[in-house]
């Protein structure tokens, strides 16, 4: 077990309750913290040293350039993606949960209006997706685009070189964080507006010394100043959770693939819209703007982008951020015995006694 790019501390802690015991040497890595839980996977700006052998992040921060407004960034990514796809024979599949992130992507693809692309595009959805945004489904998907039940979709040895999978993961990391939304919901705006400080950390109950030190180190290495409480919570999400959200579903996506096939698909045919460099740069350069607009509605920018396309004022006003838990892909990732992935896309499973034994040595639990 070497060069791990992903390890679910949460999954391990749910099996071995003593990992959270305060007397255990590495418990800080497994204990819940208020806003980011134990799936604290990797830093994108510096090397962290958890007890397990962690490889450098596959998602280093892009170089800071300039940015456009959110709509232009979305439109440009869509244009690039559509052009790339139509230059190949690949079939593009979009996971559409009906939520804000995936609807934003679909809007960008529809706005781009590349008929060659749209004729090929397959929307992966289920009834929960439709319920989440029924107006959008009936106006823009049904009868106009190809659909497939997301629960029946699988990547396998027959299709992994001929399809392209598009998803909305890491949208939360670019737009803000659940923690920020929770604070905005309770209208404690001063927590978000004021400079972060020890009293701020106390108010959000963040007292895990190991993780606090790591966050401080990362802030020193950040390409932009992390000033306010809002910046602090967004930075945790943007810097430390990016790997987690982009890798945990791969456990499910790649369940039928070999390590080599997984690596190929990850590098060539998995397109994460919000991972794109221009989107990340937009996020890095708009912290103040996002903090202000949050007071109108969480995830203001993607919601406004969608509203300008579909004119659904009710969804703009009332839609709340929620987990896209409907997907089998998500459920499978959380219930699968796979708990770690290395840089060659070898997976490590808890139902393998030899792996457990090795893990026990690494974690000093044996």
């Amino acid at each position, binding site marked *: 077990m070497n060069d791990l790019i992903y390890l679910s501390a949460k999954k391990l802690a749910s099996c071995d309750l003593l990992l959270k015991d305060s007397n255990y040497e590495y418990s800080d890595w497994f204990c819940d913290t208020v806003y980011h839980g134990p799936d604290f996977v990797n830093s994108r700006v510096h090397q962290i040293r958890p007890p397990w052998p962690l490889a450098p992040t596959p998602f280093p921060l892009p170089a800071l350039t300039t940015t456009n407004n959110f709509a232009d960034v979305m439109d440009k990514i869509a244009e690039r993606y559509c052009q790339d796809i139509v230059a190949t024979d690949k079939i593009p599949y979009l996971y559409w949960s009906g939520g804000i992130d995936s609807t934003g992507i679909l809007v960008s693809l529809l706005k781009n209006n590349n008929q060659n692309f749209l004729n090929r595009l397959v929307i992966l959805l289920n009834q929960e997706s439709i*319920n*989440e*945004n*029924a*107006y959008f*489904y*009936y106006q823009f998907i049904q009868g106009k685009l190809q659909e497939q039940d997301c629960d029946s979709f699988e990547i396998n040895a027959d299709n992994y070189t001929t399809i392209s999978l598009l998803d909305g993961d890491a949208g939360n990391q670019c737009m803000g964080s659940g923690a920020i*939304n*929770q604070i905005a*919901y*309770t*209208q404690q705006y001063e927590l978000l507006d004021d400079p972060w400080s020890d009293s701020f950390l106390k108010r959000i109950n963040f007292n895990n010394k190991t993780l606090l030190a790591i966050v401080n180190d990362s802030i020193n290495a950040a390409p932009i100043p992390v000033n306010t409480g809002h910046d602090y919570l967004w930075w945790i999400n943007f810097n430390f959770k990016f790997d987690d959200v982009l890798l945990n579903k791969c456990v499910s996506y790649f369940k039928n693939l070999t390590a080599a096939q997984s690596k190929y698909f990850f590098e060539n045919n998995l397109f994460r819209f919000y991972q794109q460099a221009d989107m990340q740069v937009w996020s890095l350069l708009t912290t103040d703007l996002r903090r202000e607009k949050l007071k*109108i*509605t969480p995830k203001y920018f993607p919601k406004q982008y969608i509203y300008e396309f579909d004119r*659904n*004022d*009710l*969804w*703009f*006003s*009332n*839609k*709340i951020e*929620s987990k896209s838990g409907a997907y089998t892909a998500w459920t499978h990732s959380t219930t699968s015995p796979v708990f770690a992935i290395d840089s060659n896309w070898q997976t490590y499973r808890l139902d393998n006694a030899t792996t457990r034994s090795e893990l026990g040595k690494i974690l000093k639990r044996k």
Partner: protein
Amino acid sequence: MVGDVTWKGTTFQIEGHGKYALVDVLHRNIWLTVYNETTAHVLKKIFVSKLTLVIYDLSSFQLYTEQLIDNSVCLDWQITLGVNFLDEDQMLTPTHTNQYNHQLINLAADTNLSKVRQQELQYQLILCNNILSRARGLSLEFKEDIANIFLTEIDNKVINDKLYELANRWMSKQFPAASDLLFYLNQFYE
């Protein structure tokens, strides 16, 4: 009953009060009160694309009386900030009672919708409730067609037009439910 409401040429009665409140998760205001707990949950499900709701038993508040909060004023009432409805456990609770001693306060919610648009959305809820609870002999299929219009459409005129079209389509096979619907729409003789 607190009287009739005329909406886009449609006149219907507002159900005066009921102890089950449809409470907005995001803005905490009360969109509607109904007598029947099951009805409250059905409406919550039908409007899931437009509103994220939790159901509250208002009788668990000391302040509450049926005369105090009826559907003509419920938009001006909300449940205090202490309730974090965004919490997953809260959202999944079937019917809330005031076990945490939260307060009912007479204050309109601060939302991105204008007052007029809020009232239009409330009318959609009322109309849906009236149709589903009062049309005689509704078949499951007819109910689903009606619910789907409220699930899908956001504009009141479009909803009205689609209900009219639906009722006409069902007149031959679902009588008297379809005629009840036409009467509710005030379009039986049109």
